């Protein structure tokens, strides 16, 4: 999908009620996402979601940089970062495998740190720098890590690949020459049901400065 054609206003403009009884995603994440940095927590200025089916879903204007492009965007408070990236910004490379912090397919970098974008609210990204799989290639060329994934057959079905790449990108930025043990530890939150784990680790190690393809 072409991100140039993105029109945030085209999405979700309808008046949207919330589920009447079950806890909202936002409430759930706010309860469970206690590890989120305090500075981002402080930025939800909006009241708790209305429980009435009559009410519109609350929205908040945020400013977020995605792959170096700044987006001034009004998001529904209940949207996850993954939803915003995929549905509003049109970057569908980020995949949703479980939508509940189990599989890591949705991993993106938020201010350089890998996060599960299914379990981050879009409003938490206000002011943040986000990087997705679409941002890895530079000047029309694959990053060394992407090229290593190609050369080492790291993707099988490819659905977990964007998340593996983002976790590995963060690793290589912190540790340019990871060992296989370090790569496994850094990627432990990224499941691969094709179970192509060996090839993925080989690709990450080979992409490092000391790596051999």
């Amino acid at each position: 999908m072409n991100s140039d054609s993105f029109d945030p206003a085209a999405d979700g403009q309808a008046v949207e009620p919330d589920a009447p009884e079950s806890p909202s995603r936002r409430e759930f994440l706010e309860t469970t996402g206690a590890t989120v940095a305090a500075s981002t927590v402080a930025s939800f200025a909006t009241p708790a979601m209305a429980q009435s089916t009559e009410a519109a879903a609350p929205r908040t204007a945020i400013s977020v940089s995605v792959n170096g492009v700044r987006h001034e965007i009004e998001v529904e408070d209940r949207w996850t970062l993954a939803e915003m990236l995929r549905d509003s910004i049109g970057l569908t490379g980020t995949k949703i495998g479980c939508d509940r912090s189990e599989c890591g397919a949705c991993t993106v970098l938020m201010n350089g740190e890998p996060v599960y974008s299914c379990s981050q609210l879009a409003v938490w990204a206000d002011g943040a720098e986000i990087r997705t799989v679409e941002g890895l290639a530079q000047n029309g060329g694959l990053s060394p890590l992407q090229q290593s994934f190609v050369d080492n057959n790291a993707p099988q079905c490819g659905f977990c690949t964007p998340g593996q790449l983002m976790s590995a990108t963060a690793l290589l930025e912190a540790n340019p020459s990871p060992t296989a043990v370090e790569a496994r530890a850094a990627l432990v939150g990224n499941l691969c049901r094709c179970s192509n784990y060996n090839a993925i680790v080989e690709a990450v190690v080979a992409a490092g400065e000391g790596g051999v393809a």
Partner: protein
Amino acid sequence: MTQPTRIGLEPLQTIGNDTPRIDAVERVTGAAQYTRDFKLPGMVYARVLRSPHPHARIRSIDVSAALALPGVLDVITNETSPIVWGAGCVSGGRQYNDPIKDATIHRRYIFNNPVRCVGDSVAAVAATDRNIAEAALELIEVEYEELPFVLEPEEALADDAPRIWPEGNMCPDTRNEFEPMTSRIGDMEAGFAEADRVFEQRYETGFVHNAQMEPRCALATWEGDKLTLYTPSQGISNCRHDTARDLGLQDHQVRIVSQYMGGGFGNKNQNQDADLIAAELSRRTDRPVMLEYSRREDWLGVHGRWPTVQEYRVGVRNDGTVTAMQMRGYSGMGPYRKNSGGISGMDYYACPNRLREIYPVYTNRTTSGNFRAPSDPHGVYGVESIMDDIAYEMGMDPVEFALRNMRRPTEEAPFTNYSLEEVITTGAEQFDWQARRRVQPGSDEGPLKRGAGFSFMMFRAGLGTSSAVVRVDSQGRYTLYVGVTDIGPGAKTTLGMIAAEALGVPLSQVEVVWGDTDRTPYSVGESGSRTTIMTGYAVVQAAENLKQQIADRGMPSGADVLIGTATPVPGTDGLIRQCFAAHFVEVEVDTSMGTTRVLKYTAVHESGRIINPTTARDQIRGAAIQGIGQALHEDLLYDPRNGQPLSPGYYRGRHLTHQDIPEIDVTFIEVDDGYGPFGAKTAGESGIILAPAAVANAVANATGKRMRSLPITRDKLLQEVSA
């Protein structure tokens, strides 16, 4: 990169060389579009309401409040949309057989009443966005009459068990009769009479969800009376045919588009209820409809490998010759029989007296169906567990015991070629079997105990019909049209390589068109390990056809093109064609913690000529790791008190992560038996068959205790070693 060891054949021009996938760049840049990534103008979103009860009759459904919610376009139920999902329940589990689907007595609808498991579908909503659709589900009022339920197959066969279907809980066979699947050769009485010792044991295996990373979804849109379905499918041709039949359409009125898809391992073959629900909602609302399942819905509403109970009786002479093998098995199919319920592995033995009876049984658990080598890993675990115990009990090396008793070619049953002995002896040598196994199981001192196990197999590699089209233009560009999807193994690249080899051109000169029934000819689909050998064979024939045209008429000029086609019906001249493998595993069991760590894993396969060694290697490595997960971790537990599933999802299923993964050493013994495309055989499923048995045998060798139930979890292991 860790290269596979290769013995036997030299690479050809293209085939046999490590080749990056031709679509690898799309896969690493996010450009590859999976079904959920499509967005059509006017598209709306659908969600399914599912039963919270394991067994209940629906007395009434009130959808008025849901329909009144702003943004809701439609709500459908069994009353509005009584559509039979033919592939969802088939007598005899015969998934490809139309007449049997028509004759099937236990019909599964896209919405069922009664509902027969937690997660059975009840209704579906289409709305302008996902949140509204989910909110509308909450407004549907269903009045259930709860019914008694049964979870275990043997209990389900009791006379007083709750009846899931009117005739009882035995699944009907292809004649709609309620007989076990029975295969018998020889004379059991004589076989046991000939035996010096008779061994008996019972094993159980758990439900293993396919757990592919991409949850089930479907995007349906109509133009007039033509339906287009974007859906993750392993077999676009059979998906089209099944969808057309279920909706009362002709095949040409349905177009299936499935290019990139996030795995399946057997649960994305045929059409799925999601396809029919999306199509029905799209027809009624006149909008493109995107139906998405959550991870939990995928776990409970799709399927996984059937859980089994296996009771063996084996007779052996004092010299170690097996004289009789008997097994009674029970396969829990859930409330609908999608597939066979098979339990295989006894047929690897030459023993002339064999009896196998399998009872496929309905239960109120979630549906069982095909998962990579559907009948094999659990069956081989059972057979090889008892054979391993017999070997040690009789003071024999399990490898020697296998070599003595395994099936070999005979005059009555000849093979195209036979490599079983070679894969076993090669593997034993590479693994250093004699040094790693404990002659006395469990003999290591202290709580950390090491041991080694092995298993062996053969698996079908027979040929069959598929189609291919190859076109060449005046620029010398070749386009290959094949009706495959690329579920992960790399079929698109493999078939492109076969075309390039057959045409005598570099792979870079071949473009591959795939994954769209309106643009490609028939293919068997990415199931049954058939794509490389069957569609690959058609590719070779289509290329030969095109080369003959070029020889006759010269290369095309201007706007002209030449098109070669083929739909061959290849056979193997009455010979049995199999691939062969042996896996060797060393484990370390912490008997104080109950944990098992795989230290070394050696896999030796004969899969004919290897087309692309890199992707073939990772079929074996990935499958072996899935098999380790089946051996040690994965299960879907149920609360027996209320029939609720306790462990759907990756977290509670405890799937292996990067940190659980051993090195897997892969060796291919390459042979061209003169059949199949350039001598290729099958690989995709074969790698998962041996891991559960080999791991379980290694645990037994380490601990001296036989684990009679998969998965070998900590609690089971601790209970056994402390007993």
